[in-house]
């Protein structure tokens, strides 16, 4: 019931993480492992698709906080998409929409990355 899964796929110039299920204090380390691998592989343009993310707690938000600095230092970004209102509400209560780019869907985030890559 409260399972969590991360699916990783690569687009052109960016990576996409699809999150599914419950991102809580017990499952957050799974997402950390995925971010660590992306950084090791020097993949700094990351889209996190939250379409199937049913739940996030502060432990899940902590993972995004832990990696965003390293990602941006390497001229990349973590862009979040497809959030349900319930999940967005938790981000919003903690003031995250000011700190992270949040898009309606994956396509919008991909377009933004492409524009940024053109500008160099």
């Amino acid at each position: 019931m409260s399972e969590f899964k991360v699916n990783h796929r690569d687009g052109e110039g960016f990576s996409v993480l699809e999150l599914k299920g419950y991102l809580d204090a017990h499952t957050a380390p799974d997402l950390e492992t995925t971010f660590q691998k992306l950084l090791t592989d020097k993949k700094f343009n990351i889209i996190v698709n939250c379409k199937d993310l049913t739940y996030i707690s502060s432990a899940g938000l902590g993972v995004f906080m832990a990696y965003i600095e390293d990602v941006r230092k390497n001229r990349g970004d973590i862009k979040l998409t497809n959030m349900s209102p319930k999940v967005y509400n938790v981000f919003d209560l903690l003031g995250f929409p000011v700190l992270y780019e949040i898009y309606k869907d994956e396509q919008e985030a991909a377009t933004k990355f492409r524009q940024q890559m053109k500008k160099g």
Partner: protein
Amino acid sequence: MDRSFRRTFGQLQSVFEFTNEFTQIHAISERVRYVLDLAVEELFTNMVKYNPSGKGDIHMHLSFDKKEVLVQITDPDSDPFDVSKQRSVDLKRSLEERKPGGLGIYLVQKLVENLQYEHQNRTSIISFRLPLE
């Protein structure tokens, strides 16, 4: 409904099974269930994180009336830590200035009503209410 949980993050799945059972019996909305899960997780993990070697299990009590859900979480062996005390989280801080931690209790304080804390004979009791509307 009552249930006890060992002091490990691995128990979270069982905690959510417990809240799921409770919300299904009482036909509680998805929105309220989300807040219940979030508040219970933040308080439970706080107890586990800061008091992993405490004796005994952490006990949860959920009850229901027509207008609200009542929650009580008890740690039978703990130093005092008043979760109802106002925490300051500066939401305008930049990323460089922000550090993880403290956000969970801040969220609980934002989302629940009548958050109360008692500590007596090493027992911590946290209680709160969730209105259904």
